[in-house]
């Protein structure tokens, strides 16, 4: 009962936030939400199914460009969103025979190739991707309500004009909530336990009657669909997408999110995504008022360099002191309180 109340209160607060968040914060939050969804997918893949993938940026790109292409061709935005997610899932399924054959670091390397393949396609398939110029992303709309600055042209709630970012905030919150809910249920369900067994010992899992190949493929597909959904939200947050946003660095960032958050934990992945995405943007935002950081353009250690240092330090700290990431820390804190 009180749990439901807390959830309700959280949603009320989330629903009210755009009223006083400035556009910078909304934009940052949207990027963070997109990263959260995709990171949950990778966390399930790495933490639950035990498959290392460096191709996550590739599947995110499929989601983003898939939505931009479908919506641009006149498909209804909701269908374009579903289509993009399915497309990412299909790409994941197509790659899964490889994922079923190689393990660990070898799978990481095999999947790494996809990122570079993706970059080549994004740069050169200009008919669909627009090449280096990128493509404009049609705004999302639902039942005639557009998540953009028009349609309705002016929407004022409690004296605050609701533009594109304010409207997208709600879409983001709903999508993240769905992603968390589905992820949690998946982990606790029969297939989730089967995947965890698979991770710990394939032989044991097979003896228990788990179809190893099929489950591995399914894990990769689901994770790719998460990436696709994250990609769609990212595309909507950008308004125009360019290939540079979906490079190798993004894949590494996802890996960092999962490690910091704690592999296998849905909430941890979301927290890790928030940390990794928002940290450089927020530090940049406050670089003027933080005493140690140089103002951009004046030389010295700037916010961007500093956030990289924090990143590095956070990863080292997590690996040394909290192998199970933020999620593990939270779990231990809760246990101590109970005891």
């Amino acid at each position, binding site marked *: *009962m*009180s749990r439901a*109340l807390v959830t*309700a*209160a959280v949603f*009320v*607060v989330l629903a*009210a936030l755009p*009223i*006083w*968040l*400035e*556009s*910078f914060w*909304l*934009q*940052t939050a949207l*990027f963070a939400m997109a990263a959260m969804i995709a990171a949950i997918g990778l966390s399930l893949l790495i933490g639950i199914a035990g498959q290392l993938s460096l191709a996550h940026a590739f599947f995110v790109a499929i989601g983003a460009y898939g939505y931009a292409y479908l919506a641009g061709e006149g498909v209804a935005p909701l269908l374009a969103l579903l289509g993009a997610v399915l497309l990412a899932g299909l790409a994941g399924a197509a790659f899964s025979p490889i994922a079923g054959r190689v393990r660990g670091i070898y799978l990481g390397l095999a999947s790494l190739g996809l990122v570079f393949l993706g970059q080549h396609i994004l*740069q*050169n398939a200009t008919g669909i991707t627009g*090449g*280096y*110029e*990128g493509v*404009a992303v049609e705004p999302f709309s639902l039942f005639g309500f557009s998540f953009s*600055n028009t349609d309705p042209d002016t929407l*004022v709630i*409690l*004296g*605050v*004009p609701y533009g594109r*970012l304010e409207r997208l905030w709600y879409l983001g919150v709903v999508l993240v909530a769905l992603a968390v809910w589905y992820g949690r249920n998946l982990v606790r369900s029969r297939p989730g336990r089967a995947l965890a067994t698979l991770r710990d010992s394939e032989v044991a899992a097979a003896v228990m009657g788990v179809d190893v190949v099929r489950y591995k493929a399914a894990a990769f597909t689901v994770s790719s669909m998460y990436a696709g959904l994250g990609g769609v939200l990212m595309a909507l*947050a*950008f*308004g*125009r*997408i*360019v*290939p*540079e*946003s979906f490079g190798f660095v993004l894949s590494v960032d996802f890996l960092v999110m999962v490690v910091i958050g704690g592999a296998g934990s849905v909430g941890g992945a979301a927290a890790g995504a928030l940390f990794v995405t928002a940290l*450089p*943007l927020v530090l*940049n*935002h406050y670089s003027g008022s933080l005493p140690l950081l140089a*103002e*951009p*353009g*004046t*030389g010295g250690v*700037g*916010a*961007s*360099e500093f956030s*990289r240092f924090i990143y590095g330090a956070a990863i080292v700290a997590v690996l040394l002191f909290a192998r199970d990431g933020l999620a593990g820390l939270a779990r231990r804190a809760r246990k101590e309180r109970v005891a």
Partner: protein
Amino acid sequence: MSSRLVGSVAVALALVVAACGKGGAEESGGGAGTSADTVKTGPGATADTITLGYLPDLSGVFAPNGKSQMEGANLYWDAKNKAGGICGRQIEVKVQDTGYDPQKAVAAYQQLSGDVIGLGLVLGSSIVSALLPSVESDGMFLNFAGWTSDILPAENVAIAGTTYDIEAINAVDFLMSEKGVKAGDTIGHLYFEGDYGENALKGSKFAAGKHDLKIVEQKITPADQDMTGQVSAFKKAGVKAILFSAAPPQAASLAGVAASQKLDVPIVANGPGWTPQLLKTPAAKALEANYYVVSSMAPLSVQSEGVQKFLTDYKAANPKGTPSSNGSLYAYAGAQIADAALTKACENKDLTRKGVLDALHSLNALDTGGTVAGTLDFTDPSRPPGKLVYLAKVSADAPGGLKALGEPSEAADAQGYEFK
């Protein structure tokens, strides 16, 4: 209990909203605020300051260039402010680092956009592409630190000079008139995948079609550092000259490898293919022998009033710095363009974003004192504002390592070139 809690949360929220809701903050600044001197102002302009946003790359792959650009911009605006500013207002520069990452750039733009009248500098065409929808809906001008004609037509974007394709057409013209390349010959074009290289390739293909030349294309990415394979391909094809639309690391490799393979042909590069640091590489000798640069940004050895003033001021402000055409001089020229637009807008008594944009498009013969070749005409958003280019040869003795070859010029072929 529970309903009381919900109730108190609701009341608290209502209070917070009433107290610190962001309101229509952006609109209130955007109204027709008329100050004492009856100049209409909007976001980014008050009675005593005008604020410009700068979005360079200070931590990504182009960080050295970005830092150099901020030196040039600060140099110009500091001097301007000392001289009384524009329209009786001081110029404030707000800088946000993009790290050459579109995501960071979009967030940084959201942070700046409410407070600035326009963007004094944005580096990277992928960044400009990502920002363009917002920039257009906010109606501000944007100084693009790049020279690609793919961005045209763009109402909001100002390019300093002419574009890579026109530079390449001029490069071919130079090769044919000065370097003995004849109809029927083969020339190589080494270029980057992406806006810069592919835009230049459009120009070289156009010129080649006009003069019955054959172009051998070699497409590379910025990650490719060793040009041995490309040089071999050029040698096999028997090229008489090489056009180069990539970055300095590739230039060093190209010139060095070509010299060692005895491929002794002129190399003509676009502006971004040169940096004075190249003279400190082992390829310096080969570069001095065969390397030329065609660009609308002035080589620093040009004896024009604007360039000389820039050089003296730069040396005074940064005794240890190295001025560069694409870095500090570009940002300096970009500031000249913004200055001209703002001054004109002030004369029109309209310092709103739209007023500045209109003022920019009314400039038909902006003279930068030679920092950008020729005069600039911003009246037609579908064409680059400049037509002329500087041709320069590598020379270790010249400032910036480039010696200008004659006055700015324009190839006859360029006049028939259609953008898009």
